[in-house]
């Protein structure tokens, strides 16, 4: 695509936004459109002419400035300035003048006392898109982005979206932590950061609880250590366990898909059913061993158990892959030099596993930090950062500043963990996959080690099976909590009853949230996969200034815990100029940018396997970036695209931490609804609903797998055979 074509399209788009589309958001929905071209649906040109938005004249002037040259067929570098000016004018005015009139006091001499300005609408959106297009066309005309306007436009719009939906909310939250009652208060900020609620060590000497930071760190460390060790035991058995290991490997692998398709807190429900005060195991212990009923499961032990149940399979996936990648010939080499089995393990296998162990530890650590559902359901008095942030926003004492400060602490811990890993891993890269076939036979495990692994792995396996069994059964019996195991459809009926009044009527209380969930997931999945793969292609294959920045921002949203995202989104998008709270759109946007990194990583990994000369060959034959992308790259990336699709669909169905802040009465989500049922004590309904979710996801995932062969769903995707040119 040439710069001129892009610039003309952008100009057209912006002009439409100026003359036709309603400039401001429609507060009461689409019905307001009838007021066009006046009232709340007025396009900008009407608002300019009646003088009520005189500060937006620069928008019209800039467009008029761009038009003559473009109509004459010349696209110059100056377009970049015009495009940037448009974006700045729209956003600048939007932030400077809000619902309460002037927001930026220092502009008072210039703007006086303007009237209230509601949020930006479709017209503004079109003008912004046009501005970005003009900016990109100008950059391409200047020779940036390989002089390809298509690439320039993609980079600029992706960059804009990432800035708006990843970076801006974070900055907004930071500033919220700095303010108190609308005034800058660094002292209050400092006080919040070092508050005893976060850092108190009271639990060491008294019965009071410790600060949430310590709780969070303790929980995350324990989860990470235990999950990694369990995963290691499973992986060792599966890869090095001999003939019987093969059997267990199959069982373990089947198990790894469970946490992926289970909403994170469902495990907690099962744990309550098993170990709660009236739980099955608790009752059994009381009847048989006179062990008194207690609430021990509510607190650190319960949350830890739930998190380990979710994380151990993922650790297994990672370590299993790493263990397989260790060439058996290395171990054979060690044994030919006279090392005994235990010595081989300690001196060769274990050191080579270290990076994978670190990765698994980090992943479990970070996931534990980010986990919100389990601490909410099982935490009891044991608060962690993610739940405390939630209650600072949603609790009796609504205190956004406190929530923001706690979110910053959580963010700092997460980044600290990533930084530590980067430091530690930086110099250690063991490439053991050489690409050459390796015919060695993996060394058997030392007998003692094997026994230990089996002794750990099998009971855990049975425990896991019991937990998921409870979920499977719980929704279909009268009262599993009290041991009444007679079959019933009652709970499922409460949620999913369908009646017939002149057509099907969805009477059940869960239908609304289920429909919304599927809708939101089905809309956000293709967007996530598409945007993720595009970004991956831009990052891996194009060379442009700011590439590193784009990559960083993409990965940033991976590192930010969901609760932090939720808090930052309500802070950023609750007021003009970008007002999205209460809509389904904010749910979609939240999912897209939360799950984006998975698509990007998958795409980059897949692209690394596709020889770059294929792109170049297409280019030398006259294929521009767009043609190359459509005809060469995307067809070859199909498996990665499908994986990203399936992953984002499933995550959108199971996520709770970020969206619990963003749902509204009109747009409720399944997970949030289930959490609500749990809090109301309707355990059986919650479990029944969870089962329905699991079935839907299982069908989706298996269906997609069937359609396109093997879609790898794990985060630790195994190495695929490289796609080489012509081979």
């Amino acid at each position, binding site marked *: 695509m040439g710069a001129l074509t892009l610039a003309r399209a952008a100009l057209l788009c912006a002009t439409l936004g100026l003359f036709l589309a309603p400039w401001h958001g429609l507060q009461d929905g689409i019905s307001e459109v009838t007021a066009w071209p006046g009232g709340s649906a007025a396009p900008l040109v009407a608002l300019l002419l009646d003088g009520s938005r005189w500060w937006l004249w620069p928008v019209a002037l800039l467009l008029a400035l761009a038009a003559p040259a473009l109509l004459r067929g010349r696209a110059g570098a100056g377009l970049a300035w015009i495009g940037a000016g448009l974006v700045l004018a729209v956003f600048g005015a939007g932030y400077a003048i809000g619902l309460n009139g002037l927001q930026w006091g220092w502009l008072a001499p210039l703007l006086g006392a303007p009237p209230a300005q509601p949020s930006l609408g479709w017209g503004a959106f079109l003008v912004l898109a046009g501005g970005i297009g003009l900016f990109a066309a100008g950059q391409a005309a200047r020779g940036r982005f390989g002089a390809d306007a298509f690439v320039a436009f993609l980079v600029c719009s992706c960059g804009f979206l990432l800035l708006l939906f990843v970076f801006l909310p974070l900055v907004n939250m930071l500033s919220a932590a700095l303010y108190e009652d609308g005034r800058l208060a660094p002292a209050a900020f400092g006080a919040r950061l070092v508050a005893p609620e976060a850092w108190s060590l009271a639990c060491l000497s008294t019965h009071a609880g410790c600060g949430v930071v310590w709780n969070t760190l303790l929980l995350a460390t324990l989860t990470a250590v235990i999950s990694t060790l369990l995963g290691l035991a499973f992986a060792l058995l599966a890869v090095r366990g001999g003939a019987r290991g093969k059997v267990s490997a199959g069982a373990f692998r089947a198990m790894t898909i469970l946490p992926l398709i289970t909403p994170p807190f469902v495990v907690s429900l099962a744990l309550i059913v098993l170990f709660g005060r009236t739980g099955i195991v608790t009752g059994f212990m009381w009847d048989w061993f006179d062990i008194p009923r207690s609430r021990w499961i509510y607190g650190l032990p319960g949350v830890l158990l739930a998190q380990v149940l979710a994380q151990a399979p993922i650790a297994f996936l990672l370590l299993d892959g790493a263990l397989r990648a260790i060439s058996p010939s290395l171990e054979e080499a060690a044994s030919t030099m006279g090392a005994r089995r235990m010595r081989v393990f300690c001196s060769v296998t274990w050191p080579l596993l270290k990076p994978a162990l670190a990765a698994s530890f980090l992943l479990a650590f970070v996931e534990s930090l980010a986990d919100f559902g389990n601490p909410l359901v099982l935490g009891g008095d044991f608060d962690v950062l993610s739940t405390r942030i939630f209650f600072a926003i949603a609790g009796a004492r609504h205190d956004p500043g406190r929530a923001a400060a706690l979110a910053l602490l959580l963010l700092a811990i997460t980044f600290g963990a990533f930084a530590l890993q980067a430091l530690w891993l930086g110099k250690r890269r063991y490439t053991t996959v050489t690409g050459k076939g390796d015919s060695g036979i993996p060394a058997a495990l030392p007998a003692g080690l094997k026994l230990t692994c089996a002794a750990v792995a099998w009971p855990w396996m049975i425990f896991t099976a019991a937990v998921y069994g409870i979920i499977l059964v719980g929704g279909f019996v009268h009262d599993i909590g009290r041991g009444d195991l007679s079959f019933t459809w009652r709970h499922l009926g409460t949620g999913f009853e369908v009646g017939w009044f002149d057509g099907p009527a969805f009477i059940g209380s869960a239908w609304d949230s289920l429909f919304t969930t599927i809708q939101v997931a089905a809309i956000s999945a293709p967007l996530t996969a598409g945007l993720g793969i595009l970004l991956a292609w831009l990052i891996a294959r194009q060379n442009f200034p700011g590439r590193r920045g784009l990559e960083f921002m993409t990965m940033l949203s991976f590192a930010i815990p969901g609760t932090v995202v939720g808090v930052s989104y309500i802070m950023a998008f609750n007021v003009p100029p970008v007002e999205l709270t209460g809509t389904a759109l904010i749910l979609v946007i939240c999912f897209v940018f939360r799950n984006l990194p998975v698509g990007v990583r998958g795409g980059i990994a897949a692209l690394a396997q596709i020889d770059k000369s294929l792109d*170049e060959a*297409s280019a030398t*034959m006259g*294929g521009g970036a767009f043609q190359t992308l459509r005809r060469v790259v995307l067809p070859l990336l199909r498996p990665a695209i499908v994986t990203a699709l399936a992953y984002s669909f499933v995550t959108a169905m199971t996520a709770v931490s970020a969206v619990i802040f963003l749902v509204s009465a009109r747009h409720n989500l399944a997970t949030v609804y289930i959490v609500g049922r749990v809090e109301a004590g309707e355990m059986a309904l919650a479990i029944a609903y969870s089962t329905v979710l699991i079935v839907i996801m299982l069908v989706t995932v298996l269906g997609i797998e069937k359609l396109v062969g093997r879609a790898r769903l794990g985060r630790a995707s195994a190495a695929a055979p490289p796609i080489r*040119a*012509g081979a």
Partner: protein
Amino acid sequence: MSDVAINFEGVTKAFGNVRAVDEVSFQLPRGALVTLLGPSGCGKTTTLRLVAGLELPTGGRIEIEGRDVTGLSAAERRIAMVFQSYALFPHMNVLENVSYGLLVNGARKPSAEAEANAMLKTLGLEGLGQRLPSELSGGQQQRVAVARALVLRPKVLLFDEPLSNLDARLRRRVREDIRDLQRKLGLSVVYVTHDQQEALAVSDLVCVMRAGKIAQMGTPVELYDDPADAFIADFMGEANVLQGEVLAPGRIALGGIPLDVTMRPHPSGPAQIAVRPESILPQPEGAPGLPGRIQRAAFLGQTREYEVETAAGMLFVVTPAASLAFAMGEAVSCRLDRVIPLRDVKG
């Protein structure tokens, strides 16, 4: 139209602080096959990619057939390139691969496929159109890559080490095929290789590069017989580079021993002197020449190779197998036929 296919004017390509191509200027005549030759990292592939538009220069000016293409992307340059890996699209069959370029340039499918089929026929690939690249042999894949490039009727055809993935036997045949095709169609070709024999065999002109600059450019014979310096003498085939002295035109001293030789004009005085292994003929002791002793002897079928220890240093010698044979340890006298006094001592 000018007779210049490609014109480089002070072209520089820098990656960070490294100048992969450093103010290179040259002109390639239309209809010629020009080889870019040099050790790895010399900038030859970067130069080729600059012609293709896969890299854009950081300085200078590039013209193709008189048109300034300096800022144009690869898609806009009307060149075609055969990649080292062939870069055949694995998800398209042979016919789709060959008609790809026509389609993205706006041709209709039936006419594109007809043209592609004709080109496949020209290259002896008829009947393979429905195969996937993975179902072809290495040689066939290479020809598909060539067909894919030629079907676009490019102004300039670029080859990036096209033979490196073929086995030794096939290499000779394919390079002759390429040369024939280039002559028949009158193509302007730029050809990158690191194999000097390949370069000598196929080129009208050879351009030897070193450290991002052109070390020497000329016909194969010029480069072989008249290398500018020790680097080129050594790179274009083997050479014994010895320290000696030019006494007079046609008379030099090596290891203190005066010898009558054929040589290009060179000022008298100490000089580095290159001697090709085949320009040395060992003769029985006592004959006029540079006396020495055979340190190593090997029989290679068509030729014999010797290492001879002399007062001027160790000499590597290649003689026809039919010539007189010597055994290890034998004393000989080496007759030097033709020597090359080198201009640039530092290299």
